[in-house]
């Protein structure tokens, strides 16, 4: 984990040093997830999600030299995004209906943060009790590396292991192994999140903010 934190710090340093390629790579990796992250917390308001993610990137870049690598870089971006969402609701006034998500509950968030740390992804949105889609989406977004893509290629696009291997430019055995690890990680995440959700059936202490 220390090595991965080191990698995230290295990415931050490269961006601070003006490395355009590092910036573009980070943007391409984080933008879709942050967009979904914001969209779910803004009740599906696409325009607000776009503005909030834009504010998130601008704020994050301004403060990037304060990133110390204690959390995964994406987790750090998510925290800034949460603040931007809160700012959005503040601007709209107290009457605006605030969306509270299951994964924003501390125990569920802890599971998602733990998943994030090993490989730079983080939690996202979802409503376990009412929306399978959001729950699965959040779980997929929390998986490390390219696990989520591999699972979607397999089960939604119907690609064979050989076709996945070609896309990843790896051998078939490596692709099969990656697919197995992705399935295991997804299954473990679902089980952990389901457990955390059950705990929520008991009353929670009021959350600050």
């Amino acid at each position: 984990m220390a090595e991965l934190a080191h990698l995230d710090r290295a990415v931050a340093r490269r961006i601070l040093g003006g490395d355009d390629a590092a910036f573009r790579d980070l943007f391409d990796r984080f933008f879709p997830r942050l967009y979904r992250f914001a969209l779910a917390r803004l009740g599906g308001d696409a325009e607000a999600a776009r503005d909030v993610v834009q504010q998130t990137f601008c704020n994050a870049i301004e403060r990037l030299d304060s990133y110390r690598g204690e959390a995964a870089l994406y987790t750090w971006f998510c925290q800034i995004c949460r603040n931007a969402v809160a700012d959005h609701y503040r601007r709209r006034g107290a009457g605006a209906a605030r969306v509270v998500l299951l994964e924003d509950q501390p125990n569920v968030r802890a599971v998602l943060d733990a998943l994030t740390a090993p490989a730079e992804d983080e939690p996202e949105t979802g409503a376990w009790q009412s929306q399978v889609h959001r729950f699965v989406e959040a779980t997929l977004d929390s998986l490390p590396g390219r696990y989520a893509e591999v699972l979607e290629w397999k089960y939604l696009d119907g690609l064979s292991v050989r076709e996945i291997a070609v896309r990843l430019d790896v051998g078939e055995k490596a692709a099969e192994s990656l697919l197995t690890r992705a399935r295991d990680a997804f299954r473990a995440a679902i089980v952990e999140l389901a457990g955390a959700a059950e705990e929520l059936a008991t009353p929670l202490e009021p959350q600050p903010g």
Partner: protein
Amino acid sequence: MDKPQDLVESLIRTAGRRVEPPEDAYRQVFTAAHQAFRARTARRHERLWVLWAGTAAVLVLAIALMFQWAPPGAGRAELARIERAIGVVERATGDVWQPVGESALPLTRGMKLRTLASAHAGLLLAGGASLRLAPTTEIMLDEPGRLYLSGGTVYLDHRGSVGTGYRIETPAGTVRDVGTQFELRVALGALRLRVREGSVEIDRAGQTLAGAAGEQLEIDALGGITRSRIPATDAAWQWTEMVAPTPDMDGRPASELIAWVARETGRRLRYASPAVEQRAATVILHGNIRHLPPLSALDAMLATTDLEYALDGDTMEIRARSAIPAEP
């Protein structure tokens, strides 16, 4: 099939595909974030430059006082000017390498310039051509129209320059351009030439080879030659956009920006109609695109107009967002 696999598959199938952000949201957020990134980088380089310049000035003054020394190169003709420096870029007279900042710095005869890992540099050569250095590249300026590439990758855009073609001397041969855009890479005695536009000649071991637009020539250390194709819009050219010289577009017609972006990205330009072309020639732009990559600059500038663009293979088409009223 075992149970756990069923669970994974059925959940993912039931949930369906994750939401993909709309393309226009991507572009808008990228443009804003990239501007923030560039502004922050520029401020940081300025701070470092001031720090370094202050230290250097004290040192130079001290040395000059000690040895009554006149700076080398003083009064010499300027052969190039550093327009952009991203990452660690250093210049040297002799063997003493010093970092350069974002400011436009002159380079005179005999000076060397190098980019370290991940760094890029953009130079304006005497005569007006644009020379760009990829990471881990070293050049020496020899005389007007001639430079020495000891290793790494450079890109030369001759357009807008005056005079005859440029000569680039390398350990693997001499390259002469004939009004063109091309990339030249030299490493371990081998040479790779990619021609984006125009034509280029290589003199090597008493033999002259010609490379035409869309061609890639690779000459290995033993003289073996391989020719292949490389389109003007190939992703391999993208690094050159990072240090492209950005023209001052404030008060200029949109058509000038559009033509510049099309050229920098290697795309053919097409207007959806004569009315759109006329519109682009009359819309006057306001603002600064300094240090923005070409497509980001176009995003930022066209956002305030009734024009938009679409990329279609190797073509960039300019369209109207809504019907353009007829000229009175």
